[in-house]
């Protein structure tokens, strides 16, 4: 990577990637021991584990780029909500199992396209992380797509619940494809694609899965934004951080 790359932009990009996986991994881990079937307990714990593993890689790199001697743990446990850069979608509460899996699919579908592009990044480190994450994501997206189809095209009740989940979550999808100056700088440097350029592929993929699931994608959905720019998170994030960061905040400077 050349020294001319805008460090601030690169840091923002890495935080966006790492915060998405951190917050989503946290949400998924809340299911532990409470799933509808044992196989799902195992699969959800596994998904959370993969996502936290990816977080470690993204935030390690972010801390390095930041160059202030901090660690991935410092970034995860010692930033307040306004410094988080995840999309709003991943911080929304789990709701029922259907809502959790719908959120997972909407994220996984985006991640599968994003990680595919990042494997061609001009930044070697980004390429390596994306390669590892893409392998894990391939399994996640297959599973979440299958579950969305199974429950959408299941009973009347499961169909209704999945449609309600899609209606609730879809307004949070648009933020994944927003472009700003950070994205322009990343695209310019060949590090990451312009998010808007992923949209057509995403729509085609999600459209196919929802059709199979007999679910209707809301038309002209409003776009809630403010997570990846950090300008306005939901109220949910603060509570999530209270839980996640509690030990590090209550007993600062300890080894765990």
């Amino acid at each position: 990577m050349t020294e001319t790359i805008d460090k601030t932009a690169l840091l923002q990009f890495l935080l966006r990637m790492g915060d998405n996986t951190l917050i989503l991994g946290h949400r998924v881990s809340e299911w532990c021991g409470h799933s509808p079937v044992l196989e799902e307990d195992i699969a959800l714990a596994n998904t959370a584990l993969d996502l936290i593993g990816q977080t470690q890689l993204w935030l390690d790199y972010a801390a390095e780029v930041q160059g202030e001697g901090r660690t991935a743990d410092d970034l995860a446990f010692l930033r307040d909500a306004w410094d988080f850069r995840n999309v709003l979608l991943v911080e929304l509460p789990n709701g029922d199992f259907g809502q959790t899996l719908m959120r997972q699919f909407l994220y996984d579908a985006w991640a599968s396209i994003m990680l595919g592009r990042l494997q061609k990044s001009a930044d070697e480190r980004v390429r390596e992380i994306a390669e590892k994450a893409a392998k894990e994501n391939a399994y996640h997206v297959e599973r979440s797509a299958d579950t969305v189809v199974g429950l959408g095209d299941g009973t009347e009740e499961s169909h209704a619940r999945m449609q309600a989940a899609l209606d609730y979550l879809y307004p949070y999808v648009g933020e994944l494809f927003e472009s700003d100056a950070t994205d322009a700088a990343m695209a310019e440097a060949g590090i990451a694609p312009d998010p808007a350029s992923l949209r057509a592929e995403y729509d085609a993929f999600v459209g196919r899965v929802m059709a199979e699931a007999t679910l209707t994608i809301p038309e002209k959905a409003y776009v809630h934004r403010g997570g990846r720019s950090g300008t306005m998170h939901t109220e949910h994030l603060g509570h999530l951080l209270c839980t996640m960061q509690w030990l590090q905040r209550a007993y600062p400077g300890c080894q765990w």
Partner: protein
Amino acid sequence: MYAQMVKSTGKGVKTREEMSEDERAFQDKIDADTKIEPRDWMPEEYRKTLVRQIGQHAHSEIVGQLPEGNWITRAPTLERKMILLAKVQDEAGHGLYLYCAAETLGVSRDDLTEDLLSGKMKYSSIFNYPTLNWADIGAVGWLVDGAAIMNQVPLQRTSYGPYSRAMIRICKEESFHQRQGYDIMMKMAQGSPEQKRMAQDALDRFWYPSLMMFGPSDKDSVHSAQSMAWKIKINTNDELRQKFVDQTVPQAEYLGLSIPDPDLTWNEETGHYDFTEPNWQEFFDVIKGNGPCNTERMNDRTRAWEDGRWVREGLMAHARKKAARTAAE
């Protein structure tokens, strides 16, 4: 030990003369360490006892996710969070292996689950204790998984093939759990004064409940005698408890923590530690449902099962539709 007070025939072990021809042939196989496989003939009471034991063990793995799951969202570092997630995932996997082993004896996982939720079947008393500070996660790995290993290592040689094979897979993972738990205790015991306090507090609360995991003394129990003759129980509860104490005391000393037993002493003559028995009244209270967390644990599992009904039904309905569509093509 995840299976406590498993009832057997309650009649005492039959002499060879009292046995039928089938029973004699069966006992000969067991005495020769030949594994019993699902299709082999077996006494009905052997099958029933095994279902109770394996089922109780499986339920313990499942309910055991809860006290540890209680700290996943609060784990203090990304690495600790990953280790804990992996551990809890392993425990769910253990539950799965064990339910599969029970299925080979003709009971479905759903039947066993219903029996757990109706209170007909039990799970280990240990999971009715709360995890109150982060060191509890260390203590659970060190002591609870440690006690489980004590019991499960000999069960790798148990007479029932599918159970024995499940135990072999499980034991490999349990030793990781114990090491990781001890590693947390080490960090805490060497940490700040508050961390040390958490570590000691965890040991104080988990010591006696861990000793209870082996169950009350069964040296005179007819149930245990039969189970031992069938090699579905290998050691007495007292033997395993003693082994556990002997192993754990030096580990606690190494951590600089004190075991909450003023009468704990090394006995030169026996070559073992003398120790105070746990309060067995408390144990029976917990088994009856009056432990600190029984209600929460059962509520959690019941809610998971009830709230998950629409998911299970939805996925099954979809599978049927798919099969019908394939058949129509």
